């Protein structure tokens, strides 16, 4: 097992605000990591530093040994680091099936000339993509929306759709930004099922999430941020008992937080 994602001494300032303070971590290939912390802890900032949306002021992020400094979001995606967004960003004017198929962009080998003449190679490739997309649609239980415009989907289904699209890209590492935000209980269960399935298929996953029961249920390793610092990391059981973590959540017992979240 090699290291999929490694951060070294990351620092980020926003004006006078020290948002990320000297954070180092390393994420093993094939693991499912939860990233938690109270509001304003710096989770999203750290997340956005992975894809250079916020370039780090200090320190480096390495992706399977490749330094990501100076790379654009497109280049990072090409390396196999695929992310979703906090508010679902589906392609509103495309159908649900087309949305998922659009995720396959990086795995398409045929060029536009071949596509324009619908050559046999393109035909095979398209059929393969369609089959895979329809399989994913089945896993999500979204078949009945297949030819519906994505914008007509309820919010929860849009988040699932976005996740399916990201999975379709065949990522080496998948970054999920609050995937359960806005989902109801049955949708969250669906989500947990999909995330676990993707993980068992060999994809490394990092999840930022407020839904504690989801994180504690699926993650095998949890990173806890507070006020820009990495205050704890370890398996969910340890984290739930960690004094620093409990203190970070406004001094209340994590059990209370858990009870509230569910």
């Amino acid at each position, binding site marked *: 097992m090699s290291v999929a994602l490694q951060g070294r001494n990351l620092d980020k300032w926003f004006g006078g605000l020290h948002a990320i303070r000297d954070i180092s971590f390393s994420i093993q290939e094939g693991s499912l990591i939860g990233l938690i912390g109270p509001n304003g802890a710096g989770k999203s900032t750290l997340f956005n530093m992975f894809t250079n949306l916020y370039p780090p002021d200090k320190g480096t992020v390495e992706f399977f040994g490749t330094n990501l400094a100076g790379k654009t979001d497109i280049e990072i995606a090409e390396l196999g680091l695929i992310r979703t967004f906090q508010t679902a960003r589906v*392609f509103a*004017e495309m159908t649900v099936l087309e949305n998922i198929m659009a995720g396959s962009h990086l795995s398409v080998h*045929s060029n536009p000339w071949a596509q324009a003449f619908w050559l046999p190679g393109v035909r095979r490739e398209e059929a393969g993509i369609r089959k895979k997309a329809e399989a994913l649609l089945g896993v999500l239980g979204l078949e009945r929306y297949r030819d519906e415009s994505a914008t007509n989907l309820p919010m929860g289904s849009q988040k699932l759709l976005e996740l399916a699209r990201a999975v379709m890209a065949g990522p080496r590492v998948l970054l999920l930004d609050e995937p359960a935000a806005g989902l109801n209980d049955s949708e969250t269960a669906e989500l947990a099922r999909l995330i676990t399935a993707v993980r068992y298929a060999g994809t490394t996953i990092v999840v930022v999430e407020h839904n504690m029961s989801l994180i504690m249920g699926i993650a095998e390793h949890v990173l806890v941020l507070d006020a820009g610092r990495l205050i704890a990391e370890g398996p969910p059981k340890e984290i739930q008992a960690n004094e620093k973590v409990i203190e970070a959540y406004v001094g209340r017992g994590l059990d209370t937080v858990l009870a509230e979240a569910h």
Partner: protein
Amino acid sequence: MREAIEIALGGILQGSVFALVALGFALVFRVTGAINLAQGAFVVFGALTLYSFQNGFGYGAFHVPPLPLPIAFIASLLVSLLVGLLLGKFIFQPALRKLPLGGMVLLTGGLLTFFEGVMLLVWGSQPYQLQPWSGFAPVNINGIHIPTQGFWDFGVTAIIIVGMWYVLQKTTIGKALRACSENPAAAALMGIDVPRMTVLSFSVAAAIGCVSGMVIGPVVSLEFDGGGFFTSSGFISVAIGGFGSFVGALIGGLSLGTIEQLAAGYVSSLFSTTLALGLLLVVLIWKPTGLLGSGSQRRVDVRDASVHAYREALRLSRKGAIIGGIVALVVLAVLPFFLNTGGILSSIVITGILFFAILGLDILMGYGGQVSLGHAAFLAVGAYSAAIMTTRYGQAPIVGILVGLVVALACATVVSFVTVKLRGHYMALATLAFGLLVDSVAVGATGLSGGPSGIAGIPHFSMFGYTFDTQVANYYLVWGLVVIGVIVLSCLVRSNFGRALRAIRTDQTAARALGINVPRYKLMAFLISAGFASVAGSLYAYYFQFISPEMVSTQRSFEMVTMLVVGGETTLVGPVIGAVILTLLPTVFQPLANFKTLAEGLILVGALLYLPSGIFGGILAAMKKKGDRPVQTPPVQIESTPVREGVVR
């Protein structure tokens, strides 16, 4: 020296009108975030209205006697305010809620065309010049002649600017307007009636435009289609000066007028236009916020994504596409046997040529979501390359097409340096500037293009020893190419390429996150659209055996956009409906020809407002609704199923 000063003074005079148009731009832009291309039409409208009031007019029993200047001025001002209020209330303001900013540029472009059509009907196509307000004799200062109208001009400009400044900075309404410009949503929450402020800013801008037309009317002659010139000059001024900055608009307008007049006086008017448009392109590349741009730019991206309603994803079913395709092929094959009566068949050939160009435009605008208002420029490149290659160099027609293609792709690559960085209305304006630039080269570079009278004696298209010299032969040539184009492009858009473009259209950030190379795909879409337009332009020249600048002018660009929008964007075949409506109807019903400009504007505005998916899109939506059976919602599974491995790989 005396001459230089007089030219410069003329430039400042002209520049003051640009500055007032720019001021109108800036006002509407600051309050609504939209660019109003109809702004320049108000200049002409104001001048022509004043002319009518000064000289009297009547219709049947209704008659208005000639009025003295002050009363005529006030009457014209009231008319222009009224027109501005009506347009603002019933077209501009409702449109803002429905359309993205790129669509607003199209809408106001349609408004400009509509205005020109109305003025053509009311005042005809001849130029008008107003009486100077205080006599013809110029004032002589140290041997420098200054027309008295110049003083009126400076005075009125100064009054308007001071008045605007006072209203915006010192009054409650001004505060409300500024609040709208900072953050419309927050302004609405504070109880400011944002729609009313929008209409107010639009009509005040319209009135300012009209007043500037009234004061400049005695100095320059104006005709119905002069609005485009003032719009583009005003826009260049505002782009130089910085969007939304009133001081910038003033400085931009004055300096543009002066530069243009000096360049025209000492070099040539072609050089002057080229300089101005070139300047605009440089500013757009280098500093899109304007040279004196303020830091308080609106967040275009946010508004662009959130305000307008999304269109439905519509697609013909597989069965429908096959049946429709076969029917279309049969109809196309036999049509000449039934319609071989001169005029109509010729119009069908022209329809086919324009439709071919619009196929490419749909890839750019419909699928790629980029707005081009200068696409006739690529028609021009193809047409003039064909004309010059065959008539001057004696080359075979196919060489003309290929040369046109190469030149068009080269131009498109250069223009895309500007446009890949821009979205929505900036992109629209950059392409508009490119179109005007090509326009002015076609008119001005007489040695190359034959000037306004164009190039005649172009041979018919011929290949492998066969000359397409009859209408029927050209019909099959053109529509054969159209069929090939439709097939190739529909393959392209149903594959990965089409998905990538449509992804970019809806959400660039999400597209990039999936590894879609946004700049590369934008460039490819632009190249495809330029290539199709160029080939269409060559065919156009070969069919007519003649090419002149007005056949490929900016007017034509708007016409193509109208055909596309009316027929239905993102449908490839839909625009044929738009092309048929706008090309065939005026041929079949000759009396309609006079109303063509007006109708084009009206149709574009109407389609944008009430039929956003176009006629073909509307048909598809109706078919979809009819075919939709009520979906049985399967019971939601709540218990967690075991992980199904191997489904996702």
